[in-house]
């Protein structure tokens, strides 16, 4: 089981939620990497290609046949020493396929998984479910849980949309009539020079001005290990992927920061932000208390 879920999830106690020690031998690490690795995991390769196909985009495509053909278990130099440990890597001939996989991941994250409309729909759906479900959560009774399908949820959303007095009416309407909250701020890298949480600063100020029920915030910062892997060169030398490839070493870490607003007040808020954005961000510069 731990091989299939990987170390991060295997270390989480399912009952308490606490982190617990987890031991992976070298061989178990390799087997788990083949399934769950951030770089070459079969799970990741599969969902990038699958989601790309079903979302109707080309971003997630890469030459997976070539990549799999060149996968090797290699002794990787470990952080500044020549002592090595076995890791999943590639032959030099697979480097471009590996680069395209990593770029496919980055583009799918920024253009599909973290697309602003997709993210705000998530929030509206969560709002609806919190209002409609008993106690605001899905049942943990097996039969009840399995009987709750997309059909039940969509049917309930349509009913709620048609009845102004129904629980979750606003959220259902936002989704089904495409009256979702609109983007009023998204992360500008220059804003990170002022504060590392610009979206939060904008969100807080807009809540003061337009009330919190009309504003939503969504922020994500990339997680997980540094994408690196060993590469076997033609002369038998083994080097780090990040050293061999400028494309990989320059790849940004995903960061999104969105603020959404009720559509009726979006234009007014945009004008407000045009005037006040800089002062809002400057007021959010972290300060040390006395």
């Amino acid at each position, binding site marked *: 089981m731990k091989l299939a879920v990987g*170390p*991060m999830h295997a*270390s989480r106690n399912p009952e308490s939620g*606490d*982190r*617990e*020690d*987890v*031991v*992976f031998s070298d061989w178990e*690490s390799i087997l788990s990497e083949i399934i769950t690795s951030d770089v070459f995991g079969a799970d990741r390769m599969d969902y990038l290609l699958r989601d790309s196909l079903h979302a109707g985009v080309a971003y997630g495509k890469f030459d997976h046949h070539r990549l799999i053909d060149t996968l090797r278990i290699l002794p*990787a*130099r*470990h*952080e*500044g*020493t020549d*002592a090595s440990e076995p890791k999943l890597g590639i032959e030099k001939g697979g480097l471009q396929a590996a680069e395209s996989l990593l770029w496919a991941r980055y583009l799918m994250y920024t253009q599909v998984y973290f697309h602003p409309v997709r993210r705000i729909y998530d929030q509206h759906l969560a709002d609806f479910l919190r209002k409609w479900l008993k106690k605001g959560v899905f049942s943990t009774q097996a039969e009840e849980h399995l009987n709750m399908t997309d059909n039940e949820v969509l049917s309930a959303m349509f009913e709620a949309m048609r009845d102004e007095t129904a629980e979750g009416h606003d959220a259902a309407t936002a989704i089904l009539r495409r009256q979702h909250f609109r983007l009023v701020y998204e992360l500008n*890298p220059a804003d*990170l*020079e002022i504060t*590392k*949480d610009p979206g939060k600063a904008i969100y807080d100020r807009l809540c003061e001005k337009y009330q919190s029920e009309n504003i939503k915030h969504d922020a994500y*910062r*990339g*997680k*997980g*290990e*540094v994408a*690196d892997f060993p590469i076997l060169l033609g002369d038998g*030398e*083994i*080097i*780090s992927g*990040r*050293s*061999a490839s400028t494309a990989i*070493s320059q790849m*940004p*870490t*995903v*960061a999104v920061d969105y603020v959404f607003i009720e559509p009726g007040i979006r234009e007014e808020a945009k004008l407000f932000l045009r005037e006040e954005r800089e002062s809002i961000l400057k007021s959010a*510069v*972290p*300060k*040390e208390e006395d």
Partner: protein
Amino acid sequence: MDSNKRAALLLSLIDKLEEKESWCGETHIQKATYFLQSMTGVDLGLDFILYKHGPFSFDLRDELSAMRATRLLELEPVPPYGPQLRPTAIGRRLLERFPKTLERHRRALETVAEHLGPRNVAELERLATALLASQKHADAEAGARWLNQIKPHIDPRSAKEAIEEVRGWTEDFATA
């Protein structure tokens, strides 16, 4: 702990490790942070568990990734090895905003860097796991047996030496 303060402390730790000629890869920062929390009492709110190379924090891994996403840290490739982590100019500006926090914990950060900076990953694994063993077992022999059991490549004698070395640092860290 406030996320900006935590980021400032991690950036300062990385700086001090670099001054002591640490490689500053993720493993180095993981183990140094473990010592900072466990031996000096600087509570960064990070959970550590026993993993491949000894004590490890998935929280810290995600924090370092988030710091790269917000341009506080960058990766510097060093052929033929993996990358090193370095504060950026934006990261250095964040450091300037927390002088009191950094001064309050300066001695703790410097003590960790002095003891761990020059060590390679194999030594860091041994010492950090020895610290964990020492916390689980009052008796050094029992701790060494436990350490050897979970890390068979660390023989019992080396395990015991590592535990005794770490225990020998207690006074230094207590005054940090």
